[in-house]
């Protein structure tokens, strides 16, 4: 890790970072850097885009072309970058509220459109940076700053939403299953269409504290006990999966990407002229 740290973190950035000690965001960042390292991508070729929230601060620490956008809009900026410079590897990192509440519309349309870039969604089931209000993925019955009496809404499954909306590669992992996470992100980046990796991550400070899991280890164990590998889930009765979630690859399909299709438009348009 030390070489990766030296190679990819910014020397001129004034650390320390803004994250709480033990936050899952650090594990996600590590996994992402290891995946990029394995893929041997040049730092100049990578653009890391984020929205707003704890996850939104990730770009500032890493030595790529980095962009910290507005809340919920990371995918829209990423779309412009990718279309303007298709050769760049574009990654958008978002939180659950970022990607599926305010950015929900952009998320489903990015999946449908199939532009060639990767969305990494850090799902900590809460709004961390703003103080623990419930998000679209806060579990039914859980407590939050805006759900003191227990949450009465039902959660989105981000990865399954992405599959339904048409993303060509979709995976889910957790910060407990860190080794698998490297592989999932690596696969996501190497695919040509729109890829989504949902990562269950601990916010022990804002989510855990309100839900009897005030330390990172308890939360990691919670992920361990609830995660079922996709291949194992096939043999299980749906009832036994009710309070669980699957991890692994959920979709991996080939379909024409936007960049390739648009190139055909250019050829047609020039012929017609």
């Amino acid at each position: 890790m030390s070489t990766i740290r030296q190679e990819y973190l910014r020397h001129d950035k004034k650390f320390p970072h803004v994250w709480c000690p033990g936050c899952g965001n650090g594990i996600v960042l590590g996994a992402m850097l290891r995946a990029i390292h394995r893929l041997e991508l040049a730092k100049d070729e990578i653009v890391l885009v984020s929205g707003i929230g704890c996850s939104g601060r990730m770009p500032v620490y890493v030595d790529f072309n980095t962009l910290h956008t507005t809340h919920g809009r990371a995918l829209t900026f990423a779309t412009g970058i990718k279309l303007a410079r298709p050769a760049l590897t574009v990654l958008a990192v978002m939180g659950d509220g970022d990607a599926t509440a305010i950015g929900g519309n952009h998320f489903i349309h990015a999946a449908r459109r199939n532009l060639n870039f990767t969305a990494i969604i850090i799902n900590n089931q809460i709004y961390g940076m703003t103080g623990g209000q419930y998000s679209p993925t806060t579990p039914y019955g859980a407590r939050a700053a805006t759900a003191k009496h227990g949450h009465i809404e039902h959660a989105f499954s981000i990865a399954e939403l992405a599959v339904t909306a048409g993303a060509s590669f979709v995976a889910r992992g957790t910060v407990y299953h860190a080794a698998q996470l490297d592989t999932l992100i690596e696969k996501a980046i190497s695919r040509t269409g729109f890829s989504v990796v949902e990562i269950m991550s601990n916010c022990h400070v804002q989510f855990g504290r309100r839900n009897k899991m005030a330390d990172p280890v308890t939360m990691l164990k919670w992920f361990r006990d609830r995660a079922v590998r996709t291949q194992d889930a096939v043999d299980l009765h749906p009832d036994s999966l009710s309070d669980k979630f699957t991890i692994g690859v959920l979709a991996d399909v080939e379909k024409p990407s936007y960049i390739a299709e648009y190139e055909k438009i250019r050829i047609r348009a020039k012929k017609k002229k």
Partner: protein
Amino acid sequence: MKNRPEIRRRLIQGNEAIVEGALAAGCRFFAGYPITPASEIGELMATRLPEVDGTFIQMEDEIAGMGAVVGASLAGVKSLTATSGPGFSLIQENLGFACIAEVPCVVVNVMRGGPSTGLPTCPAQGDVLQARWGTHGDHPIIVLAVSSVIDSFNITVIAFNLSEKYRVPVIILSDETVAHTRESVVLPPAGSIAVVDRIIPTVPPEWYHPYEGNSRGVPAMAPFGSGYRHHVTGLVHDRHGYPTQQPEEVDAFTRRLHRKISNGFHDIHIVRRLHLEDAEVAVIAYGSVGRTAQRAVAMARNKGIKAGLIQLITLFPFPKEAVVNVLRQCRAVLVPEMNMGQISREVRRVSPGDTKIHKLNRVDGLPIDPDQLFKELQLL
């Protein structure tokens, strides 16, 4: 590409002229969402951009359109979006991002009556102050108004050039009358148009400070993927681009944003003067009303009234000096607008003395016509 004839006489509407102006200025990216009366801009961009190796994308809403425009510009491509009132409200958040991160781009607002869905197919000028103050926070912006089809071409070129030169979003205000009027125009030959491009860094990447202004206060801009890896954020940032809350850095940053525009005043302030040499009364107008006013002033001159016109192309930063000169010279001015008086407020604000400032406000969804304006002029 087939050779186009050098002289390009075309029968086109204002919206089409905006597209041609944008392409002539080097625009190669459009992202937006259809809305009346701006839709033709996107439609024509969808056809024209792929012919010149550019890219068009219709996004899921205006918010996304503006986000994509900022992204494409950061990657080094001149970018445009076009919308109307309701969409203009939606783009404001990402437009503010472009302001703070100093991302050049052009936004066309073909104004319609409002608020809300308002009068989708009627001309209005209700978004003038929104164009200036629609985002949150305190920052300068450039707002230009078009009054005819040929204006739509020329001013779009100017908008891109100012945007690149000052690294600031430029808003073009059009209205339904200009957007949908067809006129025969002669577009200048491609090679004859002066095109300004943003300054790119020439120092080695390790020396590059992405937010260090030059003598004009405008930092050199390295596109993503050009070997200058840097951070861009909507947070107030230091010269490295990293977020800062240090009072002296925040202060210096905010003042530089304002200074780079105020330093460029003489470059940015564009007005047209008509018969002002000996004018005793004057019209101050912009947009399609500016053109109506040209006619009304001619009618007044025929009747022996010493009338003049100052037509504002630049609305913001407000061309104070030019307007003040007219106020000093004339005993009365008339500010006709298709709103309840958004620019007349600015005229009042800069007025140094007791020149009478009259308003003519038409808000019934119909354009101001020359007869109506002429009648008012006679009363001054």
